């Protein structure tokens, strides 16, 4: 400004000491430029973050969505009485004696019949080669059906049987003829048959409910593996965490915030709680191993122990957020209650706690979500690597019998050799993220509902 007005000074007739507000002076320009720069940095930072988020989410969905689809082979299987119930008595004990090996030929015959009907030539000399197109779990499915419905023996029943993971991979584009060159399970000839069966509508992809509800399967049957049982394990753990961490955490915070005297002991406790929130979670795992399993002799790999360990891990989070929300209740409310003669406890429970509720609930749910995704402490108490192949029998068994958890199951799949499991791991992550998102949405809804003005 001053430079400009000095040059034009005489013509403009403006005194140099006075400046026009219509013209930006040097300082203002500089400040505006700094502000614009800072804004640009901020926008750039957010943009980078968003790009990473988009890349992350799209790659998860792109890689994981395949797990929600599975290839099935639809076959009309004749449940031959001569094979399944030679005596014809329909005695369930005798029927149970027939192993899955007894069912395999039935599937083989059904497949041959289906191929014949579709006019596909059978290129294999041995029936065993043909069966390789189906999951080795298919015979077990058949056997389970017969044991449940023994009166259907002798009928021809339509089954939707799992295709083997190689066939599934071929339909999803993961397996090619070249990649099968060194594969001992399937040959390119199989794929020709699959192509023809697909045209005939015998082999088709459809929604894979088994992935969401099923149990994990052995390494050779990725097509059968599901996350359902470990989801239940996670659920039981979350119940334990909720039942232990919420009351203990809230009680501890109320005492520390409202009742405890201010002295070095409470200061020490406070510092330690803050520190515990930052302790690596594996430390809680080894603590759980030492205390709950080795000392208290609780069962290994049980969701009860997992829940207790995660409770220890979640407690500092809950205490810190609860104390923060208690602190944010204005002191005037406490004074008002004390002023009409409420006791300390009445003040806290009638007035302070209801106002702090949204914050407490949000903190608890965030803590739970954190616990849900935690894997490291589970490593040490044996919940990682354990494969629960069946649903627990009851609620008590659900807490006490060995199980896995969702993140542990995902890790287990990710480290298996078969590429078919890779897809399952990503699919598991999608389910885990859906759970976390649901919990966060619940937290937001609760906060909105309980929020009150004062």
């Amino acid at each position, binding site marked *: 400004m001053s430079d400009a007005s000095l040059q034009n000074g005489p013509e403009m007739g403006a005194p140099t000491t006075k400046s026009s507000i219509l013209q930006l002076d040097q300082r203002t320009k500089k400040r505006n430029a700094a502000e614009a720069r800072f804004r640009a940095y901020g926008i750039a930072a957010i943009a980078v973050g968003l790009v990473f988020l988009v890349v992350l989410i799209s790659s998860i969905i792109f890689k994981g969505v395949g797990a929600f689809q599975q290839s099935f082979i639809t076959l009309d299987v004749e449940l031959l009485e001569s094979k399944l119930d030679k005596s014809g008595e329909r005695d369930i004990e005798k029927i149970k004696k027939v192993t899955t090996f007894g069912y395999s030929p039935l599937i083989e015959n059904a497949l041959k019949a289906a191929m014949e009907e579709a006019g596909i030539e059978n290129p294999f000399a041995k029936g065993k080669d043909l069966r390789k197109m189906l999951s080795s779990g298919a015979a077990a499915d058949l056997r389970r059906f017969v044991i449940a419905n023994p009166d259907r023996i002798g009928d021809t029943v339509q089954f939707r049987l799992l295709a083997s993971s190689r066939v599934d991979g071929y339909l999803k584009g993961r397996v090619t003829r070249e990649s099968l060159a060194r594969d001992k399970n399937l040959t390119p000839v199989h794929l020709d048959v699959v192509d023809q069966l697909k045209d005939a509508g015998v082999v088709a992809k459809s929604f894979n409910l088994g992935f969401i509800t099923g149990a994990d399967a052995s390494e050779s049957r990725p097509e059968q593996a599901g996350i359902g049982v470990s989801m239940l394990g996670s659920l039981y753990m979350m119940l334990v965490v909720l039942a232990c961490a919420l009351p203990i955490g809230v009680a501890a915070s109320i005492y520390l915030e409202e009742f405890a*005297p*201010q002295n070095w002991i409470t200061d020490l406790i406070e510092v330690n709680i803050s520190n515990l929130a930052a302790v690596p979670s594996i430390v809680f795992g080894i603590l759980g191993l030492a205390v709950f399993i080795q000392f208290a002799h609780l069962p290994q790999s049980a969701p009860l122990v997992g829940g207790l360990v995660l409770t220890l891990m979640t407690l500092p989070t809950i205490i810190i957020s609860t104390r923060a929300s208690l602190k944010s209740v*204005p002191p*005037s*409310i*406490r*004074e*008002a*209650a*004390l*002023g*009409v*003669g*409420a*006791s300390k406890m*009445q003040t806290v429970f*009638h*007035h302070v706690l209801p*106002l702090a509720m949204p914050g407490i609930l949000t903190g608890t749910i965030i803590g739970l979500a954190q616990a849900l995704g935690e894997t490291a402490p589970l490593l040490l108490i044996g919940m990682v690597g354990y494969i629960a192949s069946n649903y627990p029998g009851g609620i008590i068994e659900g807490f006490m019998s060995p199980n896995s958890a969702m993140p542990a199951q995902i890790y287990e799949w990710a480290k298996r050799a078969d590429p078919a499991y890779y897809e399952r791991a990503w699919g598991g992550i999608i389910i885990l993220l859906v759970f976390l998102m649901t919990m966060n949405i619940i937290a937001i809804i609760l906060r909105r509902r309980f929020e*009150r*003005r*004062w």
Partner: protein
Amino acid sequence: MNDMTKIERALEMKDMKISAKNVQVYYGDTHAIKDVSVEIEDKTVTAFIGPSGCGKSTFLRCLNRMNDTIDICRVEGDILLDGEDIYDKRVDPVQLRAKVGMVFQKPNPFPKSIYDNIAYGPRIHGLARNKAELDEIVEKSLRRGAIWDEVKDRLHAPGTGLSGGQQQRLCIARAVATEPEVLLMDEPCSALDPIATAQVEELIDELRQSYSVVIVTHSMQQAARVSQKTAFFHLGNLVEYDDTTKIFTNPEDPRTESYITGRIG
């Protein structure tokens, strides 16, 4: 204290509601109240005036032991309510606060309905045996708080939705609902506009019929308008305590005179 002196003192302080003797208050190392002795009469309005930070609010909060909630605060000396030491070990501050109600500077209704704001005190003290009695107490208190006509049609609306002046009268009604004997008011009008202030002052004058009212105020005009007795605090000392008319017309201490004429404070 033996019984003899107790009786003597009781005789001597006829009509004295609260009698404070040599009260010292410390906040940590700070000596906030220095040797204050005051006799507060029943059924009068006593005003505490003085510049900011002179200790008048601190002293007021000693009278119902609200200072107990501050960890570092320490009170020495005797404060007698009807001849009984309120800092006696056997006294439960909760019971005391039901007798000595308090209204705060900022209106602080509970974030509940108007009805529940008033009913809360009687409920926790068990003053009502049934809903009808409680309704009666609520109506009586709201009438005493001079707010009944304004809120009778919306008793179940939130108390926080009222205007500032209405909120403060609600708080006064809440304080009288527990049937206190003394009502302490800590700058009750400082957050209110002149009209609301006038309403509250009128109310204070009415309350004098049934209670002993102690009011802390920054406004000397207010002290002159509502009170019968006035105490002037300065730097933690009680400088002068006398009839209001005397303090404002013929103060004895030069500091009092400087303050009321606006030279200090």
